[in-house]
C-alpha cells in the first residue's frame, strides 16, 4: 500500500486547505473479508457503508469498500490524531450527498478533532480500477 503525504496549502489569509490521500490494494480488502468475515466489516465500515457497497453484489463491493477504506485513511491524515486518541474506523463514514457525490460524516473523536482544527467541511473523491482503489480528501479550515 502506498501512503501519500499530507500537504498544507495556504490559499489566502485566513483560509487553509489541507489534503490527504491514500491508495489501497483491493485484494487486501478481499483477504481481510475472507479471513475475518463479518467482524472485519463491523469494525471498519458502518452498516450504511456496507449496504451501499454491496448493493450490486459481493464482487463489485470490494472496490467500493477499498475506496472507502482509502477515504477513511485520507481523512485520518488530515485529522492527525495523536497516538493516544481513540478513533474507531467507523467514526469516519463515507456517505452520499443528495447530489450523489461522496461526502464525509464524522462522529466521536473524529468530529471533535475536526471541530478543534476549525475544519468547515471536507471534499472527497473516490476511485477504483483494476487492483487498486484510491481516495483524496480536502479540508477547508479557517486558520
Amino acid at each position, binding site marked *: 500500500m502506498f501512503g501519500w503525504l499530507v500537504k498544507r496549502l495556504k490559499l489566502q489569509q485566513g483560509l487553509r486547505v489541507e489534503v490527504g490521500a491514500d491508495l489501497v490494494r483491493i485484494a487486501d480488502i478481499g483477504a481481510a473479508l475472507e*479471513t475475518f468475515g463479518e*467482524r472485519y466489516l463491523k469494525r471498519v465500515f458502518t452498516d450504511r457503508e456496507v449496504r451501499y457497497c454491496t448493493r450490486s453484489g459481493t464482487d463489485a463491493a470490494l472496490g467500493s469498500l477499498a475506496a472507502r477504506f482509502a477515504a477513511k485513511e485520507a481523512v485520518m491524515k488530515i485529522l492527525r490524531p495523536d497516538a493516544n486518541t481513540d478513533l474507531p474506523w467507523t467514526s469516519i463514514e463515507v456517505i452520499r450527498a443528495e447530489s450523489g457525490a461522496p461526502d464525509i460524516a464524522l462522529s466521536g473523536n473524529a468530529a471533535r478533532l475536526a471541530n478543534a482544527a476549525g475544519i468547515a467541511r471536507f471534499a472527497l473523491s473516490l476511485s477504483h480500477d483494476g487492483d487498486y482503489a484510491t481516495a483524496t480528501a480536502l479540508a477547508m479550515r479557517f486558520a
Partner: protein
Amino acid sequence: MIDGQIREILKEHARLAIDLAALDDAADLYQAGMTSHASVNVMLALEGNFDVEFPDRMLKRKVFESVDSIRQALNELMAH
C-alpha cells in the same frame, strides 16, 4: 507464551518490512512497515486468538504500536 503468540500474529498479519526475529519488543511497528489496514488485521487476529474484544477506547495507535503495548493491552483485557 503470550509474546510468542503476538509475534506469530504479527508475522502473519502485520506485513512488516523487517525480520520479526530482529524486532525489539519496544520497536515501533508502524515504522517497521505496518500499515493502517494491516493494523486492522492484527487487531482482529488478536481478538480471535485471545478471545477478547478491543473496546473503542483502545482503538488508538498507541495500543498497537509495539509488542510491549499489545501485550499490555491484552493483559488488561484478559484480566476482566
